[in-house]
């Protein structure tokens, strides 16, 4: 309908500009937020985390005094470019489907001799968790501009998608919320915050394709693990374990749904 009207207006020539102006004046709060993000993008402090992460990757650390440079993130030991847009994926050595954070924990344990369980139990923004912020910032930045293309050939990957979908719709807690309560319809918002529909591909740099991100409000770099953790907090759920299977399954569901959309991570969010 709208398209038709537009075509007619254009056929009349002089009305064209009028139509365009009308469309521009309908700029919503969403546009204002987008404009705010564009203004911030030039000085996105995520860069500070990226720099730290790149150095951490190459630094010998832990009881084994080793760097992470031989860590296999899915494309062979040491390959960083392009790995982020294909995670979570199945890893034969651990026999598990892993997202970026859970895979980094495996590498920190096997290569550097650090205690993965202890790191997973550490509060966000502290000690080794702070290091993980840098690592996910840098590793995701090395896939910036690439399209999501999670593998779905291994039965475990297919299973994680199917289970992830179930978890996305899983209602619980005193408010009866599921992920789907807020993220399964187009054009909805909480207060003024637009909500991406994560049961489909919400588009380039939206939803799954916007994380990790620098949060201006907290001045911290949030990976997908922390993003999901805060979603569950607001769903009034109990605490999802860091890098636990629920988080990896949900990331698999959202990541596969985002196939073909461009990653802008690490992005900047208010």
């Amino acid at each position, binding site marked *: 309908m709208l398209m038709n009207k537009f075509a007619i207006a254009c056929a009349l020539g002089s009305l064209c500009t009028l139509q365009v102006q009308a469309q521009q004046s309908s700029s919503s709060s969403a546009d204002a937020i987008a404009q705010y993000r564009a203004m911030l993008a030039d000085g996105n402090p995520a860069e500070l985390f990226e720099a730290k992460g790149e150095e951490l990757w190459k630094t010998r650390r832990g009881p084994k005094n080793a760097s992470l440079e031989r860590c296999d993130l899915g494309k062979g030991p040491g390959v960083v470019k392009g790995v982020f847009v294909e995670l979570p994926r199945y890893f034969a050595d651990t026999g598990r489907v892993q997202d970026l954070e859970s895979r980094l924990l495996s590498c920190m344990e096997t290569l550097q001799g650090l205690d993965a369980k202890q790191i997973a139990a550490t509060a966000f923004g502290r000690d080794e968790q702070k290091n993980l912020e840098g690592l996910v910032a840098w590793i995701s930045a090395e896939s910036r501009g690439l399209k999501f293309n999670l593998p779905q050939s291994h039965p475990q990957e297919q299973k994680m998608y199917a289970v992830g979908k179930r978890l996305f719709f899983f209602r619980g*807690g005193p*408010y*009866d*919320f599921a992920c789907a*309560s807020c993220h399964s319809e187009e054009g909805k918002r909480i207060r003024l915050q637009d909500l991406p529909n994560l049961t489909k591909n919400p588009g380039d740099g939206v939803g799954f394709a916007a994380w990790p991100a620098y949060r201006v409000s907290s001045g911290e770099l949030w990976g997908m693990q922390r993003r999901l953790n805060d979603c569950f907090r607001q769903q009034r759920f*109990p605490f999802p374990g860091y890098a636990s299977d629920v988080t990896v399954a949900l990331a698999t569901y959202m990541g596969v749904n985002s196939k073909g959309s461009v990653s802008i991570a690490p992005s900047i969010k208010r």
Partner: protein
Amino acid sequence: MTTKQSFNRKSLALIGGFGTLAAVLVGCASLPSDAELDAEARAMVRASFREQGIAKLDRIEQDLAQQACSSEQQPDEATTKRIESEQLATVKWPANGQYLGDWREGEKLAQNGRGMTWTDAAGSPSGGNCYNCHQISKAEISFGTIGPSLYQYGKLRGVSNPAAPESAAIVQYTWGKIWNAKAYNACSGMPRFGHAGVLNEAQVRDIMALLLDPKSPVNAQ
């Protein structure tokens, strides 16, 4: 609404049919059955969550309403009816027959989105979260759109005197809806504020006043 739902169900059944056909053709490759995946999801939830602060593990134990509304598909008609009647039976009606409180307090509750997260202290009062999902007063432009607009809620329903007998049906429905939204729509996205203990009776009264008092900004502006 009903036509759309039954249409959706029909097309889902159709897709389901194709799915079975495809599975037969490729020899039912490797994916476990639906029931096995359901069990796997439940086991994963148990293994992945731990309690934190006031958010204990009983929160992932689902009741029938939660369990039946945990997929893209709506539950069948019998289950829907059963949920709605069971939930209606839980509604606690106001002890003294007093349905409306103070709309000013109701507005504060509607604005307040706090409560019941693992970062909230035990015993700290919860807000109503109303503006997160609903338009309510005209003055508040920062409102969500997950639920329908409640602006002029009472006025549009012809409630000029909430105490009058002709208002009783709407007044009671509104109380029931806030207390337990699943009594009227099994898979409603709205929390069961009274039933789940998010809000107490006095707080529900205040929110009732916000929606139904002719003097509240919801109806007066």
